[in-house]
């Protein structure tokens, strides 16, 4: 959640925010304790997860579900519960982080 704090004379009149969708600057992925891990073999691209995702973190095309956007995914797990095909599993974020760290440390 970092943005450059602007001086008073550089902000728009009336505390109006003219940049639509600018909240993307907040990387709410930092809230995540559990990570939805997608099993591509099971995914049918029904996009149910997309409509229920509270954090707009599931990039899709009309035909395809892509990998979750972990910059924003808060790890609620609604996608895993609602997936009709059981294609998502919630894995503790710390386990993943630790594994990455161990690889890094050798």
């Amino acid at each position, binding site marked *: 959640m970092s943005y450059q704090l602007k001086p008073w004379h550089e902000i728009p009149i009336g505390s109006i925010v003219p940049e639509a969708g600018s909240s993307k600057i907040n990387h709410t*992925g*930092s*809230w995540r*304790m559990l990570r939805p891990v997608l099993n591509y073999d099971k995914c049918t691209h029904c996009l149910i997860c997309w409509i229920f995702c509270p954090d707009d973190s599931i990039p899709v095309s009309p035909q395809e579900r892509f990998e979750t956007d972990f910059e924003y995914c*808060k790890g609620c797990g609604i996608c895993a519960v609602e997936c009709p095909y059981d294609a998502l599993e919630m894995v503790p*974020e*710390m386990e993943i*982080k*630790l594994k990455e*760290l161990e690889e890094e*440390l050798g």
Partner: protein
Amino acid sequence: MTTATDKGMREIRWHGRGGQGTVTAAKMLASAAIIRGKHGQAMPEFGLERSGTPVKVSTRISDHIINTRAPVDNPEIVIITDPSLMFTIKDIIKAGTDENTVFIVNTNFPPDKVRKILDIPNNELWIVDASKIALEEFGRNIPNTAVLGAVAKATGIVDLDALKQEITEAFEASSKLRALLPQNLKALERGYEEVYKAE
């Protein structure tokens, strides 16, 4: 900037997640100091954040009246109640600290990993697996009482009995929490016993 004219003032900063009792723990620490006749202050920084978001709390304890109401910018002690925050908000945790800052971390990581993640090769570091204690004692990841025990041991800011008294009073005042008092007192004691100073 905090201007601590009071040289004896202890300044602590907590980093936790909403819903894990960090704010309560910080308040209990200050209250326990007040029980012992000291002056105490605990100030959460309220944002618009919701459950699960990182929260920051300042605590001050002193023999003299505490006048400042500014957040603690240069903490003497940093307490991390949720280990995942080391990865996600390291910059915020490290802000205003230096090689003399004492870190107390709730984690099951070994010390060398914590030192590596936080980039604190030489700082005084205390580690307690408070989440494990909480899960074992009352089945929920609310590590705050165990962390408090660890803080008492690591810093000597308050004694364990003052914390026990404070926790007893706080839990007995609430119909919801009363039943959980023995387990939390146990967690407090275990936090005190199980925290260790890293090499």
